[in-house]
């Protein structure tokens, strides 16, 4: 299977069937999608549409029943657990709706974790962590615990943690879901800035209209299929609706 230089994620014929008792639930019914390197892509869809399932497959957190997901040249289905862990550690950065920082660790310790998993000593890892925390504007909060900083700052720590291993892709699941309007905007702005600075591809699953206007591509997922794919300029964002479609 060939994948051209500027395509970083390629999903082909991805299906997922869950067995729920005697009933088979088709969460995904065959999704084909290509994501270009350096793109800001948003996945949209009501809950139950298969949005999260698809998102988790791109992140290597779930395996498709049929079909393939290739990320940065790695066919995720063919990898064993340790290779998958390596890809997660070196190639992907995860950002979560509820930040998912380790509560007992300081900002610096949280951000140094991916580096330690990559094989660095804690001292080396802390150095890299301090550097990236400064980049996201938290150079003065290194020794604070997550509970001692605001929601927006917690998400900044999470972004630093996602970036510290210089991944190819950032996967953000509703990154602004737990933040107020203004802070959410700041986080979107920061993600866009980091995308430019490090040449990273950003993939988000979102409901947030602010997020859509920052996107290069928007994918609507409905009933387990990619209902519509629109590049920047092909969709119009207005309050409450996109191209006349109301958001779930």
């Amino acid at each position, binding site marked *: *299977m*060939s*994948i*051209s*230089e500027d395509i970083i994620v390629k999903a082909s014929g991805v299906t997922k069937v869950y067995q729920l008792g005697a009933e088979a639930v088709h969460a995904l019914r065959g999704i084909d999608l290509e994501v270009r390197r350096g793109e800001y892509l948003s996945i949209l869809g009501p809950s139950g549409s298969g949005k*999260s399932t698809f*998102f*988790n497959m791109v*992140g290597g*957190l*779930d395996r498709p029943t049929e079909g393939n997901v*290739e990320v*940065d*040249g*790695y*066919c995720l289905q*063919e*990898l*064993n*657990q*340790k*290779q998958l*862990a*390596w*890809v*997660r*550690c*070196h190639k*992907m950065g*995860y950002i*979560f*709706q*509820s930040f*998912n920082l*380790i*509560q*007992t*660790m*300081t900002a610096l*310790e949280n951000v140094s*974790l*991916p580096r*330690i*998993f*990559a*094989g660095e*000593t*804690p001292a080396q890892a802390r150095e890299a962590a301090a550097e990236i925390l400064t980049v996201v504007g938290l150079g003065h909060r290194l020794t604070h*615990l997550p509970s001692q900083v605001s929601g927006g700052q917690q998400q900044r720590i999470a972004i630093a*943690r996602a970036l510290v*291993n*210089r991944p190819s892709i950032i996967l953000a*699941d*509703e990154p602004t*879901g737990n933040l107020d309007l203004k802070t959410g905007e700041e986080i979107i702005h920061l993600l866009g800035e980091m995308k430019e600075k490090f040449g990273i591809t950003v993939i988000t699953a979102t409901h947030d209209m602010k997020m859509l206007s920052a996107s290069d591509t928007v994918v609507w997922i409905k009933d387990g299929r990619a209902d519509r794919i629109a590049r920047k300029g092909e969709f119009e964002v207005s309050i409450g609706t996109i191209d006349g479609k109301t958001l779930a």
Partner: protein
Amino acid sequence: MTTTTQTPAATSPSIIPEQRHVTWAVTLQVSWAGIKRRFFRSLITMSGVVLAIAFLTYMQVMNDIVKSLVLANDTVLNALLQKAGVDIYAADSSDRMMILLITLSLLACLVGIINSMLMSVTERIKEIGTMKCLGALDGFIIRSYFIESSLQGVAGTVLGCILGLIVALAAAASNYHGYVMKHFPWLSVAGSLVISLLIGTLLSVVAAILPAYLAAKKQPVDAMRVEE
């Protein structure tokens, strides 16, 4: 930072590197932050071990002292012993009932450690999932849980030994006064302490295995689920 050249074709799985294990020493350094900041919680977990091991130590040390006093065969002392309810003609007082009691208390302690560690696994599903998203292997999760509950167990054991010894000495001194120090069985008391230490450590290490294993089986996708 590893530099990987981007290949146009999907990379064959055989040449994709495998994530390497984090060493025990580094795992300890990483887990230490959590252990330190969860200190109060750890104290509660530890208290079960402390009490069980204190009981074990108390029974053994008391038995050692009484045995040595009976062997002294002093008239005044024998009267004191009989007053305290010791059968001086059956010198070995570690009867079946006592063994049963000690076994039960140790079992309760074992179940207690397993229970509180399992609870902390459930509490930290999200944390474990997140760590796996960041590239942690099962081995890292197992090691850090193992380190945490073993450290708690060992610390609890040491405290329990000290507590048990103090209580035994105080009880013996109040019953037999100066005779205790005169006929103090240093060697067998030391032996009993070593036995308590070994049993407590062994118990906590065994109790750590199951929760650590279950923790490592949690999937990274669990971190993505939002349940507030």
